[in-house]
């Protein structure tokens, strides 16, 4: 496949086009993934999440600068929500990353969620694979943090950063949403504002409390302060991110997590396939009649399910 050949030789245009094919579920998208898959698994994938306006894109910009100083090539995927009403989206994360637009070792791509829940778009996982195969050393994924459902990022990233800012009640949000559990590093951004120290302290206390219950885990989420607009704290952040990767490698968690994620992905894919298959069967079968029978209390839902399953297995 021509596009894949170009991708593997480092052609950014091919990467851009392949991501479009994946987003649009074009027929050759799957074949492309099959061909590039052996060339993936090299990049360090970093997730960045937090509430809107917390400074994720600005921090990503600052992180790119740091990684580039270390001569690392960088891929960035920014996921923003699609409007549930029109299906359209405004993807504005790049505004903060203008410094890197013409750096050929930086590739930035914006994706709309296109109805997917969980903070990632359906295409995100494969887009990561494409940038991985393109040869990017580091892939940063910025994802919409809505409080409840950004947890999908843990399935796609090795290292997860959760941002909070002083004065937004973020600590409550973080506690409620169980974000603490997904964070490898807690970033207190906008540390130039009042209340940053207090927030950092509160987060540290929360981490300590949570960590006592998980004594088997050697990585204790770290709390770091940054001023993303001024690159303050970013060098330390990058250092910590790299230390986390070392930890994952030395503790074998990299492999364990990877296997877990693959298992999850396969189950999801099979699930999706089965559901579609089942919906097909139900549409062509006497599903309506079956519902009617249940309504009339001629049969119960369990027996009806058995009937449907019988059809599913006989196909």
């Amino acid at each position, binding site marked *: 496949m021509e596009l894949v050949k170009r991708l593997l030789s480092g052609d950014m245009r091919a990467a851009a086009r392949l991501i*479009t094919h994946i987003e649009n579920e074009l027929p050759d998208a799957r074949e492309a993934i099959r061909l590039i898959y052996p060339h993936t698994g090299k990049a360090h994938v970093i997730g960045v999440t937090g509430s809107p306006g917390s400074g994720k894109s600005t921090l990503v910009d600052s992180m790119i600068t740091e990684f580039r100083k270390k001569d690392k090539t960088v891929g960035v995927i920014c996921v923003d929500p699609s409007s549930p009403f029109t299906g359209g989206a405004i993807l504005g994360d790049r505004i903060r990353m203008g410094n890197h*637009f013409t750096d050929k070792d930086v590739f930035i791509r914006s994706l709309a969620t296109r109805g997917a829940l969980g903070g990632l778009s359906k295409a995100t996982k494969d887009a990561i694979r494409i940038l991985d195969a393109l040869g990017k050393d580091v892939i940063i994924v910025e994802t919409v943090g809505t409080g409840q459902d950004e947890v999908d990022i843990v399935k796609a990233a090795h290292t997860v950063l959760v941002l909070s800012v002083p004065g937004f009640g973020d600590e409550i949000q973080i506690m409620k949403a169980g974000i603490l559990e997904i964070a490898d590093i807690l970033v207190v951004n906008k540390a130039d504002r009042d209340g940053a120290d207090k927030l950092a302290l509160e987060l540290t206390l929360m981490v300590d409390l949570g960590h006592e219950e998980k004594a088997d885990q050697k990585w204790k989420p770290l709390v770091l302060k940054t001023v993303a607009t001024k690159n303050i704290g970013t060098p330390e952040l990058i250092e910590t991110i790299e230390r986390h990767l070392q930890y994952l490698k030395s503790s074998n968690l990299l492999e364990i997590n990877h296997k877990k994620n693959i298992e999850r992905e396969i189950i999801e894919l099979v699930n999706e396939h089965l559901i579609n298959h089942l919906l097909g069967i139900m549409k062509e079968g006497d599903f309506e009649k079956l519902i009617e029978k249940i309504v009339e209390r001629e049969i119960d839902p369990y027996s009806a399910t058995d009937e449907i399953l019988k059809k599913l297995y006989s196909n």
Partner: protein
Amino acid sequence: MSYERKIRILVAKPGLDGHDRGALVLCHAFRDAGMEVIYTGILQTPEQIVETALQEDVDVVALSLLNGAHMTLFPRVRQLLIERNAEDTIVCGGGIIPEHHKPELIRQGITGLYGPGTLLDVIINHVVERVKKERWKIA
């Protein structure tokens, strides 16, 4: 396999033209028309705009400019796209463009060229028509 095809459009303001409102209004209009709009803010060079268009693999680059530099900056963007083998990327422009400048811009493939106050529907229709015809090859 069924899928809903999306129009991806880059809205950019090249040059040192500080007014941002018009571009933002356009962004919202395109989004409300169901498009995915990449917005890069002001102060973009043609090189930055083209690099973004390629990485984002957009169907359309919509340039907005009020400072009169359209005869240099619009063609420059178009030229760079052609140099990068992306001549199939649609370029539309808008701003305060004198009538006598329009034929030359259109000759170079830069269309639209609507002025302030143009109905948003007119602009959206123009973009959709060009995408259908040139990118999706449906009349």
